[in-house]
C-alpha cells in the first residue's frame, strides 16, 4: 500500500494502490501516518500514474466506525503540518477529494501540466472538510467554493499552477526528482521549521471543525 524509498536524506513516500487509483482506505491511511514518522530530513508524497483519487467510499462502508477513520485521517493531515520537516507533493494523474486535500496540506506541490485536481465530494452528498477548512487560506474562498459546490470542475496542473495550489510544473519523468530537489532545498533552510510553524498557525481549529462537520454526514453517504 505504501512504499518508502530514500533519495539522500529525503524520504519518498509512494501511495501504491494503483487498481483503486490510490483511493485512501484505512490501511493506506495508517501506512501514510507511519511513513511520515520515519526519520528523514524531508518527505515527498507521490502516487505513480495517479496521485490519489480520494477516499475509498466502498472501504468506508465496510468500516465499523467511519467517523473514527475520518478522525484518523485528520491526524495524518495534522501530522503533515505539525512536523518540522518539509512535506512536498508530487502529483500526476488524479488528485481528487482527499487527494486534492493531501496536496493542499503539503508545504508545496509539484505537478505535471495534465494532472487533474478537483473536489467531487458533494456529488456523494459529502463535503471536503480540509479543502474548506484550510483551502480558503491558501486559495481563497472564491475558488474553493466553486470547486466544492460544483463537484465537477477539474483544474489541470497548469491551472493549479496559475491559481496557486502548485508551485512548480515538471514533466512526468522529472516529477519526483523535481519534488525531491524542492524538498531538499526547503530542508536546507535553517529557518524552515520556524517559518512553517508561523505559516500553519491556526490549523488545529480547521481540522477540529473538519471532523465535527463531516461525521454527521457519513450516515447519509449516497
Amino acid at each position, binding site marked *: 500500500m505504501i512504499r518508502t524509498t530514500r533519495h539522500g536524506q529525503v524520504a519518498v513516500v509512494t501511495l501504491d494502490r494503483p487498481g483503486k487509483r490510490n483511493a485512501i482506505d484505512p490501511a493506506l491511511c495508517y501506512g501514510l501516518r507511519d511513513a511520515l514518522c520515519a526519520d528523514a530530513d524531508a518527505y515527498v508524497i507521490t502516487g505513480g500514474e495517479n496521485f490519489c483519487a480520494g477516499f475509498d467510499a466502498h472501504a468506508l462502508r465496510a468500516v465499523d466506525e467511519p467517523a473514527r477513520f475520518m478522525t484518523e485521517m485528520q491526524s495524518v493531515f495534522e501530522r503533515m503540518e505539525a512536523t518540522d520537516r518539509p512535506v512536498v507533493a508530487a502529483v500526476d494523474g488524479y488528485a481528487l477529494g482527499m487527494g486534492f486535500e493531501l496536496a493542499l496540506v503539503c508545504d508545496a506541490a509539484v505537478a505535471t501540466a495534465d494532472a487533474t485536481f478537483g473536489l467531487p*465530494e*458533494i456529488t*456523494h452528498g459529502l463535503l471536503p472538510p480540509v479543502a*474548506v477548512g484550510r483551502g480558503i487560506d491558501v486559495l481563497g474562498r472564491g*475558488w474553493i467554493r466553486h470547486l466544492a*459546490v460544483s*463537484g465537477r*470542475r477539474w483544474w489541470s496542473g497548469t491551472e493549479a499552477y*496559475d491559481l496557486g495550489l502548485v508551485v512548480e510544473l515538471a514533466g512526468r519523468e522529472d516529477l519526483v526528482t523535481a519534488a525531491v530537489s524542492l524538498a531538499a532545498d526547503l530542508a536546507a533552510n535553517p529557518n524552515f521549521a520556524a517559518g512553517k510553524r508561523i505559516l500553519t498557525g491556526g490549523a488545529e481549529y480547521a481540522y477540529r471543525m473538519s471532523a465535527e462537520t463531516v461525521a454527521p454526514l457519513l450516515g*447519509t453517504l449516497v
Partner: protein
Amino acid sequence: MDTHVRMDISGPVAELVLDRPRKRNAVTSAMMAAMTDAVAEADARDDIRALVIRGEGPDFCAGEDVGGLRVRTADEARAYLDTPLNLMRALETLPKPVIVAVHGHALGFGAEVLLVADGVFVGPDAVIGCAEIDHGLVPPVLITRGLGTIRRRRAVAMALLGERLSADDAVRAGLAHAVVPDPREAAMAAAREWARWSPHGMAALKRWLALGVDADLGQARAFMPEIMVSR
C-alpha cells in the same frame, strides 16, 4: 413587478433577473429589497434547488443607483446600508448553490455580488470593477468579506485604485470561474447539474463556507457610516 426584478422558475432552478436595461440594471434600494425577498422565497421552497442571477440588456449590472443620495448622519448611513448588506448575507447563507451569469459590465454592487456566488460564468467582453472610489466611497463587501474570497492584492487594487478586471483577470483573481461564450446558458446548465446534489450535504457545505460572514459584514457596518457621512 415594477421593481425591475423578477424571478423565473423552471424545474429546480430559480432565475433572479435584473430587468432595468435602460439603466444598465443599476440597482435601487427597492430592487435590492425585492431581491432579498426573492432569495428568502428560494430558501423556503424545497422544489428550488439552485439560484441563478443574471441581467437583461447589454450589461449585467452597472452598480447601485443611489439617485442623489445624501447621508447626513451615521444613523441614516446605517439605515441605507442595511439593504445591500442584508441581501449579501441572504445570498451567502442560502443553503443552495448561487450562480451568476455576467455579460458586459459588472460594476459596484454588480461586482460585489460575485463574491458570494458559488459559480460565476462571464462572457469574454466582461468588465468587472468597483466605481465607489469615484464617489469618495469604498466597496463595503469587497474590503471585508472579499479579502478572504479573492486574491487580496487584486481586491485592494479594485477597492482603492478602482481597477477594472477583464474576464480572464477575474478568473485568475478568483472572482469568476469560467469565461464562456454564453454566460446564461453556462449558468443554467451548472444550476441544473448542481441541483442534483444532496440538499443535506449542500446545506452543510454552504453553512461551512459561510462561516465568518456576520463578523465580516459587521466590519462593513462598523466603518462605512463614517465614510458615507464625511465624503
